[in-house]
């Protein structure tokens, strides 16, 4: 039926919104929906052909109705595709903002999948992003970095929680090496605890090296 695959895509997008990770890109479905739109366009052209540009909707209500349905379905397919892609790009942007290196993570995942289950066929080690999306992420990170560069004093990607204390207690979850603070260098070894300035360690908390103790 017209628009059925589009509907599936939207349901997919809806599900994606509540997931923590990004499910694989539905290349097949996207192609099918685009194909459907193209076929509909061809249908419209064939229906209109015998009229040679002088089609009068009120004289042929049945044909007019068919045309309308075709047009609406094409628009709907476009909307579905836009919605699907928008949800995914939003998700990717969110990851860029929170400092996750999406591409690197993708690579790790695909490597793991490739090592673990080699028998699952060629699909198992493909990335869950489409090539276009990977390109988009790359360009968006550049854009974000450029925009952030104008606000170096503010640190745009910093915490959106209002600051209460200048210093906080943190516990080290993973070895992070030595960091420089204005009170000297601190070596962050696993399982140790520090009382440090929040601004100095914010990035490390976001990257999962440190845990904030309340």
């Amino acid at each position, binding site marked *: 039926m017209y628009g059925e695959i589009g509907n599936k895509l939207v349901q997919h997008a809806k599900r994606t919104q509540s997931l923590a990770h990004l499910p694989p890109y539905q290349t097949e479905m996207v192609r099918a929906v685009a194909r459907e739109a193209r076929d509909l366009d061809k249908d419209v052209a064939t229906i209109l052909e015998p009229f040679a540009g002088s089609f009068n909707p009120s004289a042929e209500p049945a044909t007019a109705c068919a045309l309308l349905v075709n047009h609406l379905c*094409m628009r709907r397919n476009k909307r579905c595709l836009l919605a699907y892609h928008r949800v995914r790009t939003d998700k990717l942007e969110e990851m860029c903002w929170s400092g996750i290196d999406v591409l690197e993570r993708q690579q790790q995942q695909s490597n793991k999948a490739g090592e673990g289950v080699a028998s699952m066929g060629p699909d198992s080690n493909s990335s869950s992003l*489409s090539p276009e999306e990977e390109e988009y992420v790359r360009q968006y990170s550049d854009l974000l970095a450029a925009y952030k560069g104008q606000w170096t004093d503010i640190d745009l990607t*910093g915490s959106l929680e*209002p600051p209460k204390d200048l210093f906080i207690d943190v516990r080290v979850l993973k070895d992070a090496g030595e960091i420089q603070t204005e009170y000297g260098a601190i070596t962050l070894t696993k399982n140790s605890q520090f009382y440090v300035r929040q601004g100095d360690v914010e990035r490390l908390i976001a990257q999962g090296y440190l845990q904030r103790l309340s």
Partner: protein
Amino acid sequence: MDIDDLLAEVAIDSTPRETRDLQELTRCWVAERVAPEILQWPGETMDRVLERVRRQIELVEDQTGNMDPKTNFKLIVIQTELERFKFLVRSFLRARLKKIDTHPLHILNQHNASLASPRPLLSPSEHQYLTSHQALLSSHYSASFLSQFPASLQRLDDTTGGISMVDKPDEDRAVFVRCLRDVGEVWVEGTDRRFEMKRGDVWVVRWSAVRGWVGSGDCELI
């Protein structure tokens, strides 16, 4: 003008610029976070605030290493204040960016319309972000699927069929406002509600009904 207004003016002049800027920034921040639409870019206030943040950071960098306990304590106070300022600016900018990302084309149109006025809607860097982000998105869409569509359907700002593709924020959303000056009678469009807004009143109204007064500073969003 009555005695209250006179008193208010005296009070404003006696508070230092810094305090007023902080108030202004806080007000902008609150307003930006609750208003459904993006508000005007407070260019002058932001310039002053950023300049001061920069100076304070320099001061802190200068003074660190000074082991005198007295300056050390002073530095902690300054740094705490700095962090708060940075949070305000950051949160303010992020709130604006979020709106820009949600309704890019609508805001772009609004911004272009406001270019003639002395105070444009977006700051230059926001405008740049918006256009490049939009360019990225549309090239992504067309690479992913739009290029396979019939040519008549490839536009992203199509208005055929009476439905515009450009999404708009909900201007009729309810907001809380506090009146800073007597506004007089307010009339909510599309309904027969009329009411009088007096100084100090707090109302829950549609954004579209009070937008003008918030812009002119007669009301503030809370």
